[in-house]
């Protein structure tokens, strides 16, 4: 082999070694990461269920459409389905005395009105409803109290709890 041939071969090998040490051009691919964050749910006891004055032995009912009916205001993610349950007292109490309460009635609506919505029966069983386009929902609650003939006079109270979740 001539000197010229040797030089050419050496040059070829160097070129190959050089090519082997260099990484190829990198290429990119991409994808999207995504999440949808929901607005938290807020439940407010807006208006208490108020039976006002009752008399021993005289049953009294407050309908969900009465002005003294209870009302819960709910806000959350617009147009989203929510589940709800009620925790209801069996009695209103005062100094260890019980005033039975029952026959619960209710109404759920996306607007602050007792028309155009849906009648419900408040209970511990789960129900569902959909928040309005602005993320609101209203629950109205009525019930019946049955004072015993010998019920002592006084102020009787109880707690109605509404639990709402996505």
């Amino acid at each position: 082999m001539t000197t010229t041939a040797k030089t050419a071969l050496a040059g070829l090998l160097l070129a190959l070694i050089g090519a082997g040490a260099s990484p190829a051009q990198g290429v990119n691919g991409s994808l999207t990461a995504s999440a949808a964050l929901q607005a938290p749910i807020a439940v407010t006891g807006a208006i208490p269920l108020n039976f006002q004055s009752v008399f021993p032995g005289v049953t009294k009912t407050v309908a969900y459409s009465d002005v003294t009916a209870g009302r819960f205001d709910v806000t959350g993610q617009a147009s989203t389905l929510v589940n709800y349950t009620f925790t209801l007292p069996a009695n209103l109490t005062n100094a260890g005395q019980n005033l039975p309460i029952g026959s619960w009635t209710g109404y759920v609506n996306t607007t602050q009105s007792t028309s155009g919505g849906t009648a419900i029966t408040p209970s511990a069983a789960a129900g569902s409803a959909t928040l309005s386009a602005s993320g609101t929902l209203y629950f109205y609650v009525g019930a019946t109290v049955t004072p015993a003939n010998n019920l002592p006079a006084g102020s009787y109270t109880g707690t109605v709890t509404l639990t709402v979740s996505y």
Partner: protein
Amino acid sequence: MKRLRYSVALALAVLAVARSAAAQRPITVTGLQSLAFGTLLPGVPTTISRTDPVRSGQFLLTGPHNSQASLVFTLPPALVGPGGALLPLVFGGGDAGYSQSLSIASQVGFDPRQRFVLTLSQRGSGSVFLGGAAQPTPTQRAGAYTATIILTVATYP
């Protein structure tokens, strides 16, 4: 004897050229499936596993058969939402996985924050899977959040 030695050298050179030519098959990276955290609530972190078949991010790699490749993620620190609101993301040491067989069930885990070297299959393909965690703050603004994840791959001939 000298002539024989030169012939062997030339043959090796020709083989090297042939191998180099074969390695020129282009590498491709395709984002197949988004990393989807789904519906979140303020203050409630959500973690997606790289083995989640529906929500994990998934890339398909193709390139030279049996070739090694270097892989680097560009990971966003947060998703961007309404009004530029940021929803923090966290990627841990085992949140990425590689599978020569393209099977989500047979991954080799690796740290997506570090460079990773892999070997493509005999067919010249492989899958990369990615999980991670989204950490909305308690006061996080509601709405849709997105970000782009980039995977850069380079092969060595």
